[in-house]
């Protein structure tokens, strides 16, 4: 199964590449048909990506979420899933043009990591693992989408005179609301991640909160998105400011994921 996974992984990357090219064609040539095909290819790639994760899980004999490679691949999967839902729900194919390159970047990072399968240490052999990490994947995916929407929002301001952009990108108010929806989805799942992690930590280490760098940065991310939500309520902070803040929030997400693991080792540093 691990061999199947090894063969399928680059194929998945190629398919994401194909989806990206189609999205770029849609954006550059302004062909709606390309967007439809890009969506289909992205959807098909998600199915294939799911298969890769299943193969990895079967091959490793556990959930494929316990090292940098596995989490990066799952993170990309989560971002793909959430972006597809948002493209479909809000009829917003341009989201794919920006989301798929981010997915490819994350998968590129995954490809650089060690794929060796190690047996799980006892602390990781818990039913909470699946719940804790899968909610984190959705949270990170949703925050990734909010980041992409923020970029589009900022870009829209520069290209407001272009009729294609005006047609393909929802109005600023709606774009802000879509970003808000993705942040709320992310925050809800991040809260769930922190809660399940706390319960698990209490069982494994006897302390539900020990200021481990990963815990601390999850809290920092939570606080930043909480600030984002409060800022939106204040008059004048919607739109551009909120978009900048959502982008900063995602940088925190990335730091929580990569920076903490590499720069601030703690009990979460499972390499």
């Amino acid at each position, binding site marked *: 199964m691990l061999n199947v996974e090894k063969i399928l992984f680059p194929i998945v990357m190629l398919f994401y590449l194909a989806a990206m090219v189609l999205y770029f064609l849609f954006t550059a040539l302004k062909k709606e048909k390309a967007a439809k095909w890009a969506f289909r290819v992205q959807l098909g790639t998600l199915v294939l990506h799911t298969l890769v994760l299943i193969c990895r899980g079967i091959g490793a004999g556990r959930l494929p979420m316990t090292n940098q490679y596995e989490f990066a691949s799952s993170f990309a999967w989560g971002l793909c899933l959430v972006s597809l839902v948002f493209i479909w729900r809000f009829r917003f194919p341009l989201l794919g043009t920006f989301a798929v390159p981010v997915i490819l970047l994350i998968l590129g990072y995954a490809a650089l990591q060690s794929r060796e399968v190690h047996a799980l240490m*006892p602390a990781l052999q818990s039913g909470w693992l699946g719940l804790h990490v899968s909610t984190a994947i959705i949270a990170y995916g949703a925050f990734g989408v909010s980041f992409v929407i923020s970029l589009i929002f900022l870009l829209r301001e520069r290209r407001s005179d272009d009729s294609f952009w005006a047609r393909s990108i929802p109005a600023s108010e709606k774009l802000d609301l879509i970003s808000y929806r993705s942040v709320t989805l992310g925050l809800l799942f991040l809260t769930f991640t922190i809660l399940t992690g706390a319960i698990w930590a209490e069982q494994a280490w006897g302390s539900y909160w020990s200021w481990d*760098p990963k815990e601390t940065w999850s809290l920092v991310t939570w606080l930043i998105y909480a600030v984002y939500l409060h800022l939106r309520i204040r008059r004048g902070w919607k739109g551009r400011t909120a978009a900048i803040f959502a982008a900063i929030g995602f940088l925190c997400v990335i730091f929580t994921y990569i920076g903490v693991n590499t720069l*601030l080792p703690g009990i979460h540093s499972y390499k």
Partner: protein
Amino acid sequence: MRKIRDLLTSMSFAIVLLVLLAACCAFGSFITQGQTYEWYAGAYGERAAVLIMALYLDDIYHSWWFFALGGFLCLDLLLCDLVRLPSLIRRTKKAIDPQSILRSPVTASLSHVADPAPVFSALHMPEPKAFGQDGVSGLFSVKNRAGLWGAWVCHLGILLLILGFGLGQMTHMEYTVYGVPGDEKPIGDTGLTLSIDDFRIDRREDGTARQYTASITVSGKNAAAQSGKASVNHPAALHGLKIYQNSTGWAAAVTVSRDGETLQEKVLCAGEYMPIQALPELSVFFNAFYPDYAPAENEALEGHAYLYTLYYRGQIAGMNILLPGEVITVDDYTIRFSDPQEYTLLQVKQDRFTSLALMGGLIVLIGLLLAFYCQPRTLWALSGQDGLWNVYGFSPKGGALFAEQLHSAQEATPKLQKEE
């Protein structure tokens, strides 16, 4: 006084607190916590070390100013929830009052609608109710009133979470007990004793540990013996204490003998000292055990080894590696390390406020669900003189998306007439 109350309940104050807390938390993760002045001076320089110690940056998360920030956040949340409670109750009641509905702001509207019923059903609104007031008649429907309480519930949850965490930090008991099977150790000042009955390591074929399980008994003068098993992720709960299988390390039997006669024997865990009774000024320290030791000069030689340090009058007198069969000889005395075995390190804890913090966390989650996915919306339709209806919708958080939904509802019902 009113100014202070206004400040404490203001959104700006909450935002400043959240930003400060986020910044402090992030900052704390970059400075190694819990070290000495000397350590910081070595790592960051003398000036930085002075600053770190003066500002309590060596233990940020337990510093008075961090607690003050948390305290202000609690005060802010408490006051916000208290101040907003009456208006929230009023809003919840008014949400189903036709008179208030007629005065409420309009997020989106449709005009000249032949039959408003399909619009209500397309937006998944509850069965509309009829009303007639001041010569105006119509239909109204209210959905997700509970969503009004989302932020309030979330704030309450955060308050309980911080309260539970803070009280837990102040009152919790924590002890560490380690040893090998057969050991009986006191649990701090609880008056209870923990006996390690057995310690097993379940290993995979490749030698890695699958699980560590300690069989333990807790007893006391006035407490009946209670036995249980503590393994990783499955703590034991005995006499109101939670016992966690936390860690493991190596232990070895250390024997002091003279002319073949054993004078002293003790199982020593790595990191422990043993004063030599026959030589009062001498003590032996067990540094570490290497189960797969291969000396650099002879890598073919495989086996285990003990690293020890001898102390004479508190000063290091010698430090070396002992291979199997080798002994330490001091005058006529022989010190031997043997029978390596893994010991268990158990964490004994009691935190009566964990459930309060957990409850707070769950309430936060419920609050977020209400706030984000139970968004209140009101739809009302007023009949005009021409027999057609005007439909109005109010969704404080729906905005453009709600307006889009309302217009889609019109598209989905072809019998409707042109929108406004």
